[in-house]
């Protein structure tokens, strides 16, 4: 080899930026380049010929020795990295830092002779990388080790490469236990396979994944997992943060279960309430305590003419009729959690007033009111009262009205008896208990019989004939009642009788008089709560015409008087004025129906007599009955109206009247007069009769019939029967109108209220 050719390799040898040495089989140095010299701090001159160990003045690692041997003996090349060896060669520190180096050993030259030692200084690279890593690690570690959430890194195969402290405590495994194992080894479950695959593919998780994991001891752990992938040195990893949401999940589950339970309960209740709210025909209103409405149900909306929520926001107070608003104010103040009941009127959508029976409560900050429309009941009540008022408007208080009230009351009781008994029978039959039924059926029959008796009495009354008018010695009668009366008043009340002699006989029904006197005495007793004296006084008197007028239609003549006088509380003028009114009572509920005096009055009137009250507050009350004086065996002195003997020869009268009781009364009168009567409740019922060929001599028709009015009916009737006589029954107001407008030949009219006498006269007149 020429010098030139040799030169370059040699130059090259020393120029190489790595330590190079050639060693023989005994590790003796054959060559030592400059770089190695500076790395080791040992010059080539010093190194040459010595063994490596001798040169370095220190022991070399077994691995290196083996490598050297394998190279020279076997021809094997070796690589020794600082990764596995902290220090392969004892290189002195440079700049105060150790020299990190990799070493390779390769056979060189003839096999089995020499090897080449190659030392690479990787300090800077390694350091830089290490520093970078450490810095990253430090940053990373600081975050990650102190992170409360478990953080796990897995490789592309799903094997755990690293877990942080939080992960260790979360799952109960030491890092070494799980590194290298599949993720499922840590989590206890294999739930993240898909997630990992997704993330490994580079897709981001749309939202954190929730899985259920398991602590080493078996405890359930709910986890929220987010993960992302990263790469380093051509390897792909996934780092996942596993947040322990066990507590949160438990709370969620508990809360959800609780809510479901509550919701179910609430839903059921709500559904029920909703149904009631929607379907109820009663009005339902919810409002704030100050009355501002927050909700109205369909029934309320319908009645009050509101669509949906129109009423919301207005005040309940405004719903009520003006006069009733004070009533609402009072009720509103009294509202508590217990329900308050009251009746107040509202203005309905059609402008009419409606009576509502309210039940209201106050709850929390709201008040709730449920109202039932009782208008029709009220109207019925009013109608009754109006009818009574109308009846009473007349100068003559019509005893029928008053008596009917009393009888109706009795009737109700009897009917209740029948119904009650029947209901028990029905129940018993339903459950198969048929023993003892006769007791109840007997009771029902008994009540029904008594009701029949009442009806009979009513009918008898309608004929205006006393049931059993006889001349009576009143004094004798009263004496006969003495014991009964004393027993009735009790210990505290004293009864005195002042019976005038020679008062004569009174024409009356003895039983009824007894009843009347008994009632009066009991009334007197009730008026004297602390005891007192009752005087029963009999006199006779003469009533002249002038007096008779003020006595409500009584005929002038001679009368026997029975007075019952008490020393009780007395009554003020306005009460006295109404004392004989039916239903009028000053007695508390449950004591007296208010019918007693009216019935007495009715009885007096029926007897062709009169009843009168005198009273002074604090002094007492005196009720006097006037009964016509009679001769023994003589007929009672009757008033003008005298019932003549029936003269009818079978004439037929059609009565068209929608009020059943009035119709009945008219019919009775007709029967009394000897006529046959056909009844119809309205024009529809009447028309077939009118258009038939049946014998009809007279039609008595109410003008204001439902459906077709009387006038029209008359026209149709006259078409068929041109000569048919028609008697119209008109009200006061219509009287003039009817007279002027359609009264014609063969027609007449009679004004309500009319006495049956008057009716009888008219009928006879028209049929004569």
């Amino acid at each position: 080899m020429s010098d030139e050719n040799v030169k370059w390799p040699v130059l090259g040898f020393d120029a190489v930026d790595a330590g190079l040495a050639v060693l023989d089989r005994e590790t003796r140095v054959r060559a030592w380049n400059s770089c190695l010299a500076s790395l080791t701090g040992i010059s080539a001159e010093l190194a040459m010929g010595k063994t490596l160990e001798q040169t370095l003045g220190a022991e070399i690692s077994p691995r290196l020795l083996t490598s050297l041997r394998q190279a020279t003996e076997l021809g094997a090349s070796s690589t020794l990295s600082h990764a596995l060896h902290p220090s392969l060669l004892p290189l002195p520190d440079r700049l105060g830092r150790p020299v990190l180096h990799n070493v390779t050993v390769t056979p060189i030259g003839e096999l089995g002779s020499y090897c080449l030692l190659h030392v690479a200084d990787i300090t800077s690279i390694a350091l830089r990388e290490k520093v970078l890593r450490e810095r990253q690690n430090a940053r990373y570690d600081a975050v990650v080790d102190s992170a409360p959430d478990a953080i796990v890194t897995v490789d592309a195969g799903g094997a755990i490469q690293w877990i942080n402290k939080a992960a260790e405590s979360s799952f109960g495994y030491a890092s070494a236990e799980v590194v290298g194992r599949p993720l499922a080894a840590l989590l206890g479950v294999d739930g993240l396979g898909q997630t990992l695959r997704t993330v490994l593919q580079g897709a981001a998780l749309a939202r954190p994944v929730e899985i259920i994991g398991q602590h080493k001891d078996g405890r359930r752990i709910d986890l929220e997992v987010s993960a992302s992938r990263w790469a380093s040195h051509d390897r792909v990893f996934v780092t996942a943060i596993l947040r322990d949401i066990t507590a949160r999940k438990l709370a969620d589950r508990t809360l959800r279960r609780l809510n479901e339970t509550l919701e179910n309960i609430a839903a059921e209740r709500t559904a029920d309430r909703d149904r009631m709210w929607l379907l109820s025909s009663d009005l339902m209103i919810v409002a704030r305590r100050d009355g501002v409405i927050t909700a109205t149900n369909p029934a309320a909306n319908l009645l009050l003419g509101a669509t949906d929520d129109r009423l919301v926001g207005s005040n309940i107070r405004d719903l009520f009729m003006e006069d009733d608003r004070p009533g609402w104010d009072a009720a509103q103040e009294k509202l508590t959690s217990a329900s308050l009941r009251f009746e107040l009127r509202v203005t309905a959508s059609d402008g009419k007033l409606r009576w509502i029976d309210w039940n209201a409560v106050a709850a929390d900050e709201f008040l709730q009111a449920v109202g039932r429309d009782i208008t029709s009941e009220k109207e019925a009540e009013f109608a009754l009262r109006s009818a009574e008022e109308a009846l009473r408007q007349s100068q003559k208080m019509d005893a029928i009205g008053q008596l009917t009230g009393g009888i109706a009351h009795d009737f109700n009781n009897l009917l209740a008896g029948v119904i009650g008994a029947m209901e028990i029978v029905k129940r018993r039959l339903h459950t198969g208990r048929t023993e003892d039924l006769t007791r109840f059926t007997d009771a029902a029959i008994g009540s029904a019989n008594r009701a029949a008796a009442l009806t009979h009495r009513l009918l008898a009354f309608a004929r205006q004939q006393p049931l059993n008018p006889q001349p009576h010695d009143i004094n004798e009668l009263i004496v006969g009642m003495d014991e009964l009366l004393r027993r009735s008043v009790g210990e505290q009340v004293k009864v005195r009788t002042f019976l005038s002699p020679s008062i004569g006989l009174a024409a009356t029904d003895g039983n009824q008089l007894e009843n009347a006197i008994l009632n009066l005495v009991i009334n007197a007793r009730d008026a004297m709560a602390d005891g007192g004296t009752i005087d029963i006084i009999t006199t006779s008197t003469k009533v002249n015409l002038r007096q008779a007028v003020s006595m409500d239609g009584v005929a002038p003549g001679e009368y026997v008087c029975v007075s019952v006088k008490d020393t009780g509380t007395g009554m003020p003028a306005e009460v006295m004025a109404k004392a004989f009114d039916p239903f009028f009572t000053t007695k508390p509920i449950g004591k007296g129906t208010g019918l007693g005096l009216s019935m007495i009055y009715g009885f007096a009137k029926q007897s062709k007599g009169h009843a009168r009250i005198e009273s002074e507050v604090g002094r007492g009350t005196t009720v006097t009955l006037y009964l016509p004086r009679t001769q023994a065996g003589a007929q009672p002195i009757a008033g003008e109206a005298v019932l003549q003997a029936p003269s009818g020869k079978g004439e037929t009268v059609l009565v068209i009247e929608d009020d059943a009781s009035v119709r009945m009364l008219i019919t009775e009168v007709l029967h009394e007069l000897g006529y046959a009567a056909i009844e119809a409740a309205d024009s529809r019922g009447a028309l077939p009769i009118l258009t038939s060929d049946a014998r009809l001599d007279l039609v008595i028709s109410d003008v204001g019939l439902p459906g077709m009015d009387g006038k029209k009916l008359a026209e149709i009737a006259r078409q068929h029967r041109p000569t048919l006589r028609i008697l119209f029954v008109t009200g006061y107001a219509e009287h003039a109108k009817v007279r002027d407008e359609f009264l014609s030949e063969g027609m007449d009219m009679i004004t309500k209220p009319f006495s049956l006498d008057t009716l009888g006269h008219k009928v006879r007149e028209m049929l004569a």
Partner: protein
Amino acid sequence: MTQARVPLSELEIDALTELLNIGVSKAATSLRDLIGTHVALSVPHLALLSREEAAKTMTEREANALVGVHQSFEGDLQGRALLIFPEAKSLELVRAVAGGDLSLEDIIALEHEALAETGNIILNNCLATMANLLKRRVKISLPKIVHGTGETIFNIGDTSEEGDSALFLYIDFLIRDRDIRGYITMLMDMPALFALRELLREFIERTSGETRAE
């Protein structure tokens, strides 16, 4: 194109296995010295396959990515030796040999080097032992790292050079309670195999004192 395979008799296979057994055992010893904890090795299973068969077997055994350390050898014997791991396991091996205190990043950074040296130790021991016992010399290159699959990992380098035969060994390492399985493959061409057979026969003779068995 079919290649006639060099048949090795049962005894020859046995002999080769024993050789490699010794080599792997020595490697274990070296590794143990390096790591400081016991390295347990399973008995290698040896098969003589074609390269194609080797690739197929590899794929059957390992579906996922593989990483390999390979060294070529030349001299009396020629070919390429590979130490193959499933990629998923290689980090474990590195962690096992490099120590447990390193952070994941450090381990990743050191992976190549650590793997290279570990592979180097194992392969050198195998090859050197073989060569030694066969009384031959080979020159073995420095280790290189290669990534691939069962299919591709055997196709590194100049395939025509290496030939079509493969000695296929399957070894289980147990290091630090980590079960790491690996494969050693030696790719050789026909002449090399023939040469190997000759050497084996000599070895058998030497060892057992028997004349060549058929």
